């Protein structure tokens, strides 16, 4: 520690003699240069969003949102894709969020932050967040569809037509649940950190066990953070296409996914299909823009709600 300080002090001394601070230079040039990069980024964001808004808003109508695609996706609406997306993220949340919340509770309430177990789990979480989404797609196919699904089939249904050993909405949503696990864990942990120690102490003083404290005091207090995590997971999961391409998403289906082993249509995948596989892109363009706009509005709305809840949480930490 002391050598550190001495070292940094000598560094500063060195840099002083080497740089020789000139008091005349005002720093206007670097300031302007870096400001330009901010302006450029925001301008590009505005252009991307502006073009999509402009191109998509003319198409959006109740008809568009509530009817299925027709005539090779050149006409009609996107209702099955909206329904499929909602069903997908719903299944993802009810399977993924409990695991994420329990992980966060374990890390925050049961282990010390510097213990070996915590470090390893944290490392795994951070690495999971960085695994490319296409690798999740491969994993979903290799593990859920081919291993678990086919395993269930051979155990219960014999060797007939595959029942579970095929791409299905349940496999796609389980894949997405694993992909969004880090989002839920990090968000829940942030909320756990804001809970005042006194509340826990009071609970223990009343004779509650650790588990009772977690259930009756900590979980209710952490609820806004858990909800934020779920919302952020939804907004991430709703936009991912690569993980669901081989695990359940379909080009076009005449029916809605009502069973767990049905395939499904999804907004992001629908965008991909219309943009790359359509025989006449010019004809599908209006619907394509409309679909992109619906997807973006859905995701940004979710993000804004999450940001709002989180900022209220921060206020509590500052004042609580």
């Amino acid at each position: 520690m002391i050598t550190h300080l001495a070292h940094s002090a000598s560094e500063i001394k060195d840099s002083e003699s080497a740089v020789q601070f000139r008091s005349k230079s005002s720093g206007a040039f670097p300031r302007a240069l870096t400001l330009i990069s901010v302006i450029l980024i925001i301008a590009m964001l505005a252009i991307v969003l502006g073009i999509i808004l402009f191109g998509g808003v003319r198409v959006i109508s109740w008809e568009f949102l509530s009817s299925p695609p027709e005539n090779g996706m050149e006409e009609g609406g996107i209702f099955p894709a909206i329904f499929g997306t909602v069903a997908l993220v719903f299944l993802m949340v009810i399977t993924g969020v409990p695991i994420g919340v329990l992980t966060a509770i374990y890390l925050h309430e049961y282990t010390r932050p510097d213990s070996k177990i915590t470090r390893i789990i944290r490392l795994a979480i951070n690495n999971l967040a960085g695994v490319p989404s296409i690798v999740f797609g491969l994993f979903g196919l290799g593990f859920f569809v081919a291993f678990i699904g086919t395993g269930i089939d051979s155990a219960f249904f014999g060797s007939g037509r595959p029942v579970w050993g095929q791409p299905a909405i349940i496999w796609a949503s389980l894949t997405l649940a694993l992909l969004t696990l880090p989002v839920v864990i990090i968000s829940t942990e942030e909320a756990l950190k804001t809970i005042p120690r006194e509340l826990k102490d009071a609970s223990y003083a009343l004779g509650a066990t650790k588990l009772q404290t977690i259930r009756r005091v900590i979980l209710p207090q952490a609820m806004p953070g858990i909800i934020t995590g779920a919302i952020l997971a939804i907004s991430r999961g709703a936009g991912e296409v690569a993980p669901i391409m081989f695990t359940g998403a379909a080009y076009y289906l005449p029916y809605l996914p009502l069973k767990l082993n049905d395939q499904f249509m999804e907004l992001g995948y629908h965008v991909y299909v219309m943009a790359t596989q359509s025989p006449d892109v010019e004809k599908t363009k209006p619907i394509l823009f409309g679909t992109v706009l619906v997807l973006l509005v859905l995701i940004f709305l979710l993000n804004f709600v999450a940001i709002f809840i989180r900022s209220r949480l921060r206020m509590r930490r500052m004042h609580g």
Partner: protein
Amino acid sequence: MQPYIFKPKSRIRDFIIEKFIAVNAFTALIVILLIFIFIFKESIPIFTSHEVQSEASLDKMIFKQQYYEGRDPKWSWQPNSEVPKYSLLPLFLGTLKAAIVAMLFSVPLAVGAAVYTSEFAPRRLREIIKPVIELLAGIPSVVLGFFALIILASILQTAFGFTYRLNAINAGIALGLAVIPIIFTIAEDAMTSVPQSLREAAMALGANPWQISFTMVLPAALPGIAAGIVLGFGRAIGETMIVLMASGNAAIISGGFTESIRTLSATIAAELAEVVFGSAHYNVLFFVGTLLFVFTFIVNLGGELVLGRLKDRLQGRQK
């Protein structure tokens, strides 16, 4: 507030539930291991099965091969041709090209914006800039891919007269848009975590704000900025939908950036759906997935390590 009433409960039940929580906490770790096992498992025949090796061995994926009598040996990715060709080199090259363009485009912008936000921006402006740039991270990659495919490609072609509408530059720029928020957030975070005491010391020595930024804050935060760039590069290598839609998907060997490219990730996405289960092609695609996983794993581990150390050091000094 309603009063809390705690009923005494059986210890065995508590014990079981607590163990259940602990087991749950290992999900992330188990999943990471399972991902590696299940992806690598499907690529094992490349190393063991003679049948698969006759089409795609490690040799054939790396070195030049003579596919037809009387023709020059070459690197080629054509898994569906009569003589299947599985050279990974064109895919490596394509991946690298897209990532290079993405980094050249995103690093100056993201680092510049991070410097402005942490060093020059008034507090109020900062609170606006940060979420707006992070909004970029919320745009799904399929939307960026759509934008590059339908709009950006046409603009670039009209402006620069590219022969191929979908090329490395088009894909790289769209990829850069996805990478910017990653680098920006990490770099900005690294600079704001430089302790106030160091800034004050420099100020006491007579430095003005921009001198503090460039002679002290930037060097101190440099490992963090570098880690951000490395993590951004990892994302650029693994990103799929943008390159799948905007790169043209032609696996060719050339040094030019105005030609179409095919990346490792896009190859998996484009070909896995039509591949025969358990064929050599299937195994090779999983092998490509293993490579992507291992590469991003190393990059992430390195990045996290650097960031963790930097944080320790900066906080250590603060004490």
